[in-house]
């Protein structure tokens, strides 16, 4: 990659990269959020299985 190798305006390159990095961070934090919500739901579902039958509603 020597001859013909042009360097685009740094501002353009940086702008594109900054936008793409923001998108990657958005994806990452979205995953964390979804994983936390699902983990809480699964924990609740499992905990529900340990509640003695009739304990909550029949008293």
């Amino acid at each position: 990659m020597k001859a013909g190798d042009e360097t685009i305006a740094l501002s353009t390159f940086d702008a594109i990269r900054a936008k793409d990095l923001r998108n990657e961070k958005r994806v990452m934090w979205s995953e964390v959020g979804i994983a936390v919500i699902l983990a809480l739901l699964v924990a609740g579902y499992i905990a529900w299985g340990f509640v003695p039958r009739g304990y909550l509603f029949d008293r």
Partner: protein
Amino acid sequence: MIEILTTLCLCLVLLGMVPTLATFAQFLMVGLHGIWNHYSKCAGHTPRVAFILPAWNEADVLGASIDSLMDMDYPVGAWRLYVVDDASTDHTSEVMRQKMAQYPGAVFHLRREKGGQGKAHTLNHGIREILAGDWAEAVMIMDADVLFEPLTLRRMTRHLADPEVGGVTAYVKEGSEPSSLLSRFIAFEYITAQAAARRAQNVAGGIPCMAGGAQLHTRENLMAIGGTIDTSTLAEDTYTTIKTQICGHRAIFDPNAIVWAEEPDSVVALWKQRLRWGRGNLQITLAFRDLWFRPRRSSKFGNPAFGVLWFSIALMPVFMILGSAGLIGLFYLWPSWAPLAFSVLWTVTFISYAFQTLFSIVIDPQTAKRAWFEGIAFPGLLSLGVMTLAILGLKPFFGSGQWPPTGGWSWGAIGGEIGVLIILGWSALSTLAAWGVYRIDKAGAPKWLRNILLVLVGYGPLLCAISMGAIIGQLRSADLKWDKTIKSGKARLPT
């Protein structure tokens, strides 16, 4: 003896969970791409790129593809397009004459007089011409129907600033307008299989496939892999990708570099295309048999995690059948364990499905906006019903949460033994049902009927059924023929 058989059945149920757990684990790695990505090694790098577009009777889509390239934001004169015409019999030559006159010095027409040998042979004709000269510093392999967004090439070439990188691929999105149920299923599938899975593969350090619709290679890499594309398999893009990495170069997926393509609009056409991919991948499994699960041969592909992922996808229907067989075996051998095993297997499937669907919607909200329903219906409404049954502990159908006793055969009630066997065997039966949808589509059934059945049975099981067809085809050594997917020029760049 019963103990041994019961243990075997439990193992089969666990095996049935392997594809679900493997893809779930892969999805959990996706977010790490926010930390471990290749962007820090990128630079504003614009090498001279030669596009190779193999074309056989693609006159209907060629013009739009060439025009989309002209709108690219890339230095003028730093890229060229070589259309390799595989002895087309339509008006490709006429379209090319027009385009060469319209874009002098940028578009070239290479014609093979004896064609029909397949994409790899056509590509090789172009690669030979390009490598014979010294103009090209990088080569972009693309498909005739692929439309490039203006910044896509820049986003791809920036990775080549890192001398370790040999190839870069883009996110291929389904862009048919007007869309159909099937094209939206494919659009959602591509979020999971490309935007998500390939981010995770970047993190893991090895990509099994750079999409053949947008595969950028450095000249050095093309020379290193032999200067030609392999013609011995039906999945030349996967072969080239693995070879690139075996030769010591990195393959990178850039999820923000986007191209748009037209995908099949009938189950029959999809079956034909995916059967070719599936059989190609099985051929590659054999071609690189020395690599799998042997870390010393290749650190990337010899990695056990990579091997599990590769085989769980390539052999997914086999795992499904084994899982179903295990559940049915348990029902007869150890009835009290069957409901628990069933609930665990399908609850895990549901958790994985819920996570992947929600996350996919967030990863690509633009696609999810038009394909959210297809995302939800991906496994099929019937499979969602089975998942609900598992989550609710079987109570909606069996009040006590226990299966009806064996020996209670009845066609009438869902709670009878036949109903139980259908539910236990559903992951295998859904594959069979999806094959039925294909047969119905092939028989010329109306589109509305096909669509209803597809939503009920699911797109995921359809892909499984095609994989099963590929496995059976390979085992029977059925004829291998390059079968092109017909494109009609429906893909559009978003405005």
